[in-house]
């Protein structure tokens, strides 16, 4: 086993915490030597993931908890977000058409697409009302 550094944060599911979560993630990614562009990518992916949990897993119930875990080794960073709300199947997801969304005056539906674009690997496991989203970003 190679050495890994981990950090964890438990937060209530509220958009009020978005800014603090972005800071938590970017601070550690910077400290571990990720480039400014990669830090920005990770920050946005985590923002989108956490926002999705608030809206879809927990239906804006801010009493609920999200656990964010950061794990670094020499090559990569792995972020996992764990919630106990309604599961969301990332695998079934299709890229939304911006044109169609605009015509329907619909917003949203872009978060998962961004997460997949910005990170090197995104996986999702839902079991017994425990949902774990795992996102990985390579350092080089």
């Amino acid at each position, binding site marked *: 086993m190679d050495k890994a550094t981990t950090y964890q944060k438990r937060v209530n599911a509220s*958009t*009020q915490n*978005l*800014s603090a979560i*972005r800071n938590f993630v970017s601070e550690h990614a910077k400290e571990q030597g990720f480039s400014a562009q990669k830090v*920005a990518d990770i*920050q*946005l992916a985590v*923002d*989108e993931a956490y*926002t999705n949990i*608030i*809206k879809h897993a927990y239906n804006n119930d801010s009493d609920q908890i999200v656990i964010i875990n950061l794990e670094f080794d020499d090559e990569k960073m792995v972020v996992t977000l764990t919630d106990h709300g309604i599961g969301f199947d990332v695998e079934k997801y299709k890229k939304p058409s*911006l*044109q169609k*969304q*605009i*015509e329907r*005056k*619909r*917003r*949203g539906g*872009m*978060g998962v*697409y*961004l997460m997949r*674009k*910005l990170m090197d690997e995104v996986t999702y496991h839902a079991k017994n009302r425990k949902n774990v989203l795992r996102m990985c970003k390579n350092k080089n």
Partner: protein
Amino acid sequence: MKNFKIDHRTKNGLEVLDLYGELDAHTASQLEDSLKRLINNQKCNIIVNFSELDYIASAGLGVFMAYIEDVRGIGGDIKLTNMNDKVYNVFDLLGFPTLYDILENESEAVEKFLNEN
């Protein structure tokens, strides 16, 4: 909210919204309120200046998606200007440049509006 702010001014008879700070799912409602207010007052030639905006998430882009049809429906447009590379990158990833005018600076937006009207 400390990390986001909007100022409203007019320039050459056009409405300009200056965005400051970070636009995410928490702060997007402020932008939505400002846009709604303009549309309700039939002020539909809108420039949004991003020069002081440091960060945007898809919830911020969603506001522009939700209102662009209304604005164009009453003969106006929302033109976006002065984005830094980081912010532009998010618009680009989601395909905005083909459907929205994203311009270098306000003068270009003013000129475009004048040519269109």
